[in-house]
């Protein structure tokens, strides 16, 4: 089969690789009909995340048709069913899964020993996202093996297009969780850093959950225009001061809820801390650039909440934790517990409350995937979200 394969920094190729097969009775094989490039794939593309190996198949946002089912998954899945596959693999049986904390499933990471050493305790296995999270082949391919398939799926009813439901596998529940874990109140101002795909979903989630005001921060004009379409007041950080504008928009009090939809590769304009981060990252003394986290801590209203759906990989420096402690801020973060939200979100899509396909700007074949990685990374051609058709 054909698949997008990681070969090194900024080197992803569409290769021919062996077809996957069942390896466990709870497995299923899915023929991929649509998959997407996620913003967090760019951390792998730019090789800021450790644990990738040459030959790894990319992709953790995908859907398709079930073509083969292991004996222990047959009670839950049938050949021919249409499914979205969540990026977090979950067993359903461990203590964390029973609590709904699927992103920290205790059993699905087959490289648990390595993850235990790195994180203290393992987190869930993820598709196509380094050997620290299991080294599972990803879904930017014609076929994919889905472990724990009796749990790790969202069945899709007929009548909905791939484009409407594909993002149930990652960015829609990720944006939703980012807003939901802020427990948005009708008097809240919610500031969202980053208007990429997750940021766009977060903006709409915050609006639907009833925020009085949603403020979106970015500097890419087309991303800001899409954020505005979703009801956000926008701040272009290349043209105006984020701190001053946020204070203006909140009567000097600061936003009650701040959401980092950027993660480890934050760009900032002419700030000393961003120069410092770049220098340390270049010298491999720091893995993540923490400008957004620092700014959120600074601007957030005391006793407010910071929510972090953006992906961080390792170490950050010059982190104003004293400011956070003294302001009494609440932190909410983590990979997305995808299936905690998908039943509700699927209903909302079916009812027409939201159509997540608004974010798609490019649809191409799998063989054009490598060049689309670059287009997406460089924000060329108005690119916000790429869907690939294997």
């Amino acid at each position, binding site marked *: 089969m054909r698949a997008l394969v990681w070969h090194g920094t900024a080197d992803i190729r569409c290769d021919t690789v062996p077809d996957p097969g069942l390896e466990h009775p709870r497995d299923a094989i899915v023929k991929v009909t649509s998959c997407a490039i996620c913003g967090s794939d760019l951390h792998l593309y730019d090789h800021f995340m450790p644990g990738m190996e040459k030959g790894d198949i990319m992709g953790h946002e995908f859907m398709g048709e079930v073509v083969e089912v292991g004996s222990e998954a047959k009670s839950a899945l049938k050949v021919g069913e249409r499914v979205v596959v969540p990026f977090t693999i979950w067993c359903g049986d461990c203590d964390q899964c029973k609590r709904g904390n699927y992103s920290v499933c205790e059993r699905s990471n087959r490289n648990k020993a390595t993850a235990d050493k790195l994180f203290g305790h393992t987190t869930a296995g993820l598709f196509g996202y380094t050997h620290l999270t299991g080294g599972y082949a990803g879904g930017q391919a014609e076929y994919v093996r889905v472990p724990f398939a009796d749990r790790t799926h969202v069945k899709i009813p007929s009548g909905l297009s791939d484009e409407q439901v594909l993002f149930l596998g990652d960015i829609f529940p990720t944006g939703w969780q980012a807003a939901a874990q802020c427990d948005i109140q009708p008097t809240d101002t919610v500031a969202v850093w980053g208007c990429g795909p997750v940021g766009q979903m977060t903006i709409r989630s915050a609006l639907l959950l009833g925020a009085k005001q949603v403020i979106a921060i970015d500097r890419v004009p087309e991303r800001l225009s899409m954020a505005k379409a*979703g009801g956000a007041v926008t701040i272009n950080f290349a043209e105006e001061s984020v701190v001053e504008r946020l204070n203006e928009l909140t009567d000097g009090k600061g936003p009650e809820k701040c959401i980092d939809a950027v993660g480890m590769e934050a760009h900032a304009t*002419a700030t000393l801390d961003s120069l410092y981060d770049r220098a340390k990252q270049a010298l491999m003394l720091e893995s993540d650039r923490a400008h957004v986290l620092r700014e959120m801590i600074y601007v957030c209203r005391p006793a407010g909440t910071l929510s972090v759906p953006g992906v961080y990989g390792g170490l950050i420096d010059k982190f104003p934790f004293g400011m956070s402690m003294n302001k009494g801020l609440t932190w909410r973060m983590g990979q997305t517990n995808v299936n905690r939200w998908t039943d509700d979100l699927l209903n909302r899509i079916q009812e027409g409350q939201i159509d997540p396909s608004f974010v798609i700007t490019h649809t191409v074949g799998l063989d054009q995937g490598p060049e689309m990685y670059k287009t997406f990374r460089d924000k060329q051609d108005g690119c916000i979200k790429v869907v690939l058709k294997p």
Partner: protein
Amino acid sequence: MAYYRRGSSADAMARGMGWFSLGFGAAELVAGRGIARWLGMEQHTGLIRAYGVREITAGVGLLAMGDPKPWMWARVAGDVLDIATLATGLNDDNPRRRNVELALGAVAVATALDVLGSGMLHREEEEALTPPHDYSDRSGLPRAPDAMRGSAKDAPIPDELRTPKILQFHPIGMG
């Protein structure tokens, strides 16, 4: 406002020259006398140290001050100064004339890279003059955002994700 795009190849080149400026400037500042001796131009030790300060300034500008184009052109101007200064060491009386020729070759390469990088940055800006894609019709919502505000406030959010009452900002009784 000047246009530049972080992460582009032109930007990567500008940042590369920025790091080079910082490193080379530090070397000129710290080892100005040694460099002057190597060139057979001891009388220019102070000037070489001053050029180090100039290089460091350009490096900081390229890496931290937003639009890198003015700083790239500042580097080109600095390259011209370097060439003019080195040319004074090309006389037959200088026993280190060969070293001066080597240094001139290196500065010529740096100048070519600076001019190339500046050109790339300007081309990038020209390309960006095409209007950005307009996504103002892409709300993803069936009605105007204000009409959709709060449509999902009945969403099933687990209690453990709720903010403790004492940390909620809205007045008692609201929400």
